[in-house]
């Protein structure tokens, strides 16, 4: 029953994306060319990676408003290390930055776990703290392309089997998180904690620890994205990805991940991100002013929430009917 509903929601999203693509193609046939679609996916890769982390957090009935700030801080640290010590191997740097992101995420997790502070307050606080820390580290200065080593800038663009490394990294992240969510106890625990925390406690799941792990995961993915963002755009400054936390949450919401916790899937998060990505990439192509982008994505979010709420309500009614029948 659940699985069927979830599947339907994803099918719905796929249909929506296809309709969107067809509509765009009517105005601009080149958009649907495989090479262009690959470019659209590549553009959306970072959003997808972040949406996966946010999904884990939202599943446990929490929220992470600090993801974009975490990304910016990790990106700045990566750029500064690279500028100061160009000799540090890039894979090591990427791992280090992901670990830093996880550490920052664990601060959120610990505050939520050990001090019982509501997640929205914690991440609101760490959001401003992380942003301020970037300024303290960099003194407000930008790190520009010429200060970064070539290897640092090359990684996301490096072509592997015809597609950029950035695309492959996001595919790998999707695969890894899919396995974590569906095949490991931790993934099950995320769903259990969000679905019914009381029941989760009685089945032996440590609710606080599970939330802590979700924040570590979202932090690690934010850290990884920090490197990807900075190296892709070849610039690091205080305000990178400002306001992006809302895009990430929007991707999750469009993807059918319930803000009340417990409901959602990796496929939904990916499709939600892709939906936003297609819109973002299509606007200039079909001659809609980029200024309209915010208004359009806002409308899309509201429609998506309305659709999600509808399907959840229907489920409630069905249960009641069954109860009446008995």
């Amino acid at each position: 029953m659940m699985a069927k509903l979830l599947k339907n929601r994803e099918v719905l999203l796929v249909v929506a994306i296809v309709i969107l693509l067809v509509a765009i193609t009517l105005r601009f046939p080149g958009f649907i060319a495989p090479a262009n679609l690959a470019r659209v996916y590549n553009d959306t890769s970072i959003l997808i990676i972040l949406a996966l982390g946010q999904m884990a957090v939202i599943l446990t009935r929490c929220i992470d408003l600090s993801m974009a700030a975490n990304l910016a801080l990790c990106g700045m640290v990566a750029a500064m290390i690279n500028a100061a010590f160009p000799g540090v191997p890039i894979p090591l740097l990427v791992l280090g930055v992901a670990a830093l992101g996880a550490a920052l995420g664990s601060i959120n997790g610990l505050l939520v776990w050990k001090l019982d502070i509501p997640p929205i307050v914690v991440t609101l606080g760490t959001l401003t703290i992380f942003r301020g820390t970037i300024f303290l580290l960099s003194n407000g200065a930008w790190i520009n392309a010429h200060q970064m080593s070539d290897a640092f800038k090359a990684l996301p663009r490096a072509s592997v089997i015809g597609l950029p490394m950035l695309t492959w990294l996001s595919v790998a992240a999707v695969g890894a998180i899919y396995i974590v969510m569906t095949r490991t106890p931790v993934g099950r625990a995320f769903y259990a904690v969000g679905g019914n925390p009381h029941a989760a406690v009685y089945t032996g799941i440590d609710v606080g620890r599970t939330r802590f792990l979700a924040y570590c995961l979202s932090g690690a993915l934010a850290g990884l994205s920090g490197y990807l963002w900075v190296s892709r755009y070849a610039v690091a400054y205080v305000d990178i990805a400002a306001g992006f936390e809302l895009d990430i949450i929007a991707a999750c919401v469009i993807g059918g991940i319930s803000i009340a916790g417990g409901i959602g899937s990796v496929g939904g998060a990916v499709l939600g991100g892709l939906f936003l990505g297609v819109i973002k990439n299509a606007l200039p192509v079909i001659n809609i002013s980029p200024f309209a982008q915010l208004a359009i994505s806002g409308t899309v979010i509201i429609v998506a929430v309305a659709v999600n709420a509808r399907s959840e309500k229907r489920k409630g009614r069905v249960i009641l009917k069954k109860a009446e029948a008995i």
Partner: protein
Amino acid sequence: MAQAQLSPRLIPDRLRSRSSRLLKSWESLLLVVAIMIFAINSFASPYFLDPWNLSDATFNFTEKAMIAFAMALVIIAGEIDLSVAAIIALSSTMMGLGMSLGFDTPMLVIIGLGTGLLCGAVNGLLITGLGLPSIVVTIGTMSLFRGLSFIILGDQAYTGYPASFAYFGQGYVWWVFSFEFALFVLFAIVYSVLLHKTNFGRAVYAIGNNQTAAMFSGVRVGRVKFILFLLTGLMAGIASICLTSRLGSTRPSIALGVELEVVTMVVLGGVSILGGSGTIPGVVLAAFIMGMVTFGFGLLNVPGIVMSIFIGALLISVIAMPILWSRTRRRGAH
């Protein structure tokens, strides 16, 4: 121990008793913090105690605090409105549009208030009419309202408001007290009375504590919530008039990020983000604290973004303090 790991959202009783116990000491705690910051400020800079400086310092919080009063009610009722900054932007844009069509000050004020109310009504309808979660709806309308400002304005700005319009953000009523500060005091009183002395206020608490119970005891939950979102819209409209008048210009990026500062102010003021508890005097104190911190750091030439570290840390530590405190006391009792 397993109990303690559950989110407080699930056990509102525990949280409520904890916060009501601390309610009185919460405001005194804030008062102590406010006095401390005042003292530190006056030692840190010789320019602080100048009455004109202090009066200017009120601009750091008056606009946000006006919204924070309405936001406090929304949060006490267990909802949230993240679209307030976008409403400021849209109201300001519409006023700019009105100005470019040649309207004078009274009409501009009506446009500003009307836009705010209309945006609030859109939020209210979506949330109560369709039964959607307010956090997601207002994230959506936040993009929508801000996006509309971008569509109308593009990358330009409106400047050249009529001279009489400047009064709202730059005028003084008594000696050094600005018009905005007078508005702030007025709204502090109005919202205190509304929340603490009227049936409407009781209904707000009732909804925040247990929406179903409130519904069965005759509270019109939907209507109350709709009015609350109208109020945040209206207050955002008023703040927009003040801010636009003070800056004398409208850009689509006006008031960016203000929603988080408003929520911070409300939560710092002792309003539980989970709903059901909080007071307006607490929010007033939190507004003073945040305003003075900003002002003090400004006098010391600390960049705005570094202040945000302090505000963030203040938010987390002030919220954590009573939790840690009650925990050590509970341990002591056993």
